[in-house]
């Protein structure tokens, strides 16, 4: 590892169980679900009708009204989270060399909502009536570009799209860019606004969403024997990552350190994870090696609440830690917020930083029927105070994209 260390100096988050770090963390601490019946569109006839829909979010609170009107919902999430994160890190942009500030955001799907609206318009009114702003609104990199434009950040600006690993992948790449000296500060994270009619129907037809429509708050139940699929969520998170000396010089709040990162591919199937957990184990082991650790105090699991993922991830954790796996608390914040696809890894990174700051492990709610295949300490039902210096966070995406991040308390 090079001499340049990377710290987290600001957080911004939007999830279905809380907007802003304080509200989000309180909900996670208390084990409060944000899953509800979707009313963003008509779900009549859909096999699944529930999701982690973000409510009470007013984009105009975080960006000029003119911008709010001209971007897709996934960019609303990105701009709002960036605004919160920058305020949290107390960055005086005017005093910075903006060519040394990057923006790297993850998004699996880009501007779907506007895309779908325009497709409907195309069928209704003809292809000559397409909105001229379609291209810049739909493009996945709109989110990083809009953040760059808003604050004048002129360093590397990119979007990483690795399905459900996007957010974690983005954070990892931002970490590397700081470590390697390419930038001194980077806004990074992930956003997703996938609760749109076509996209939701497409996931329904894959038969991987929970159909526990009668009990939305209990539908996302990672590691539980009765789990029946994941619950799709939306939202985003942005972290300010900063080279440690740079942060110390400007007196920035140092919330945590990024210690390690790895990504790999299972190279085996577009949607089926490796049942033996070997790819997941490999990426966790690489991230630990990168961090110079052999063990961590807590694992924030990918844990989607699908039969396949949770069993394979449990195997992967055992492959890495052996008998010690039973002594490391593992939890799934997706039990409360569902699976926000490309935003998930970034939202979970915020949960990890908060867990380090507050020395508290958020619970896996709804775990009431233990699954013999999932036999680790999942911090079931109630969160717990614990001494935590290091955390491993997993993110696995369709296409066999695997990412692991290691966070540490400031030291």
């Amino acid at each position, binding site marked *: 590892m090079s001499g340049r260390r990377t710290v987290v100096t600001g957080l911004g988050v939007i999830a279905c169980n809380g907007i802003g770090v304080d509200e989000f963390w309180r909900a996670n601490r208390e084990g409060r679900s944000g899953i509800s019946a979707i009313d963003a569109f008509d779900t009549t006839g859909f*096999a699944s009708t529930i999701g982690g829909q973000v409510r009470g979010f007013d984009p105009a609170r975080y960006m000029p009204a003119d911008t709010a009107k001209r971007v897709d919902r996934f960019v609303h999430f990105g701009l709002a989270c960036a605004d919160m994160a920058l305020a949290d890190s107390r960055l005086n942009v005017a005093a910075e060399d903006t060519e040394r500030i990057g923006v790297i955001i993850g998004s699996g799907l880009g501007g779907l909502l506007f895309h779908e609206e325009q497709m409907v318009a195309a069928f209704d009114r003809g292809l000559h009536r397409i909105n001229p702003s379609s291209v810049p609104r739909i493009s996945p990199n709109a989110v990083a570009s809009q953040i760059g434009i808003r604050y004048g950040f002129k360093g590397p600006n990119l979007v990483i799209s690795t399905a459900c690993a996007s957010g974690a992948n983005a954070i990892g790449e931002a970490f590397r860019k700081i470590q390697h000296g390419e930038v001194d500060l980077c806004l990074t994270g992930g956003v997703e606004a996938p609760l749109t009619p076509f996209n939701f129907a497409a996931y329904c*037809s*894959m*038969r991987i969403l929970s159909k526990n429509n009668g009990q939305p708050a209990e539908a996302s139940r990672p590691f539980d024997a009765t789990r029946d699929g994941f619950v799709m969520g939306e939202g985003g998170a942005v972290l300010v990552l900063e080279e440690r000396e740079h942060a110390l010089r400007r007196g920035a709040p140092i919330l945590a350190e990024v210690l390690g990162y790895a990504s790999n591919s299972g190279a085996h*199937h*577009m949607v089926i994870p490796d049942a033996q957990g070997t790819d997941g184990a490999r990426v966790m082991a690489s991230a630990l090696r990168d961090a110079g650790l052999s063990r961590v105090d807590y694992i924030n699991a990918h844990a989607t609440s699908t039969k396949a993922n949770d069993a394979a991830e449990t195997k992967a954790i055992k492959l890495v830690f052996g008998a010690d796996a039973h002594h490391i608390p593992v939890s799934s914040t997706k039990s409360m917020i569902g699976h926000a696809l490309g935003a998930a890894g970034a939202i979970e990174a915020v949960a990890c930083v908060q867990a380090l700051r507050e020395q508290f492990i958020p619970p896996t709610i709804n775990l009431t029927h233990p699954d013999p295949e999932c036999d680790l300490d999942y911090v079931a039902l109630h969160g717990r105070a614990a001494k935590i210096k290091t955390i491993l966070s997993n993110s696995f995406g369709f296409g066999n994209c695997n990412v692991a991040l290691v966070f540490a308390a400031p030291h």
Partner: protein
Amino acid sequence: MTNQEIEQKVKEILSKKLDVEPGKIALETRLAEDLGVDSFGAVELMFEIEEAFGLKIPDSEIEHVRRVGDIVTYLQGWLEKQPKA
């Protein structure tokens, strides 16, 4: 549609989707072991059968399908329950 016609149609769908000669598909042929259909392949296959026969197959049924004959039996049962024209 007779039982034989259902069986024929299912075999045709399988043969086309999996590039297997129709003669090599029997009722006792196993989807996973003999034809290499994985869990997602099964979801795709059921979609094609739904399209061809015009029905919705619940997830619980997919979990029980092991052999070609299981699909045929399910479709026969479904057809018997349809109101006769």
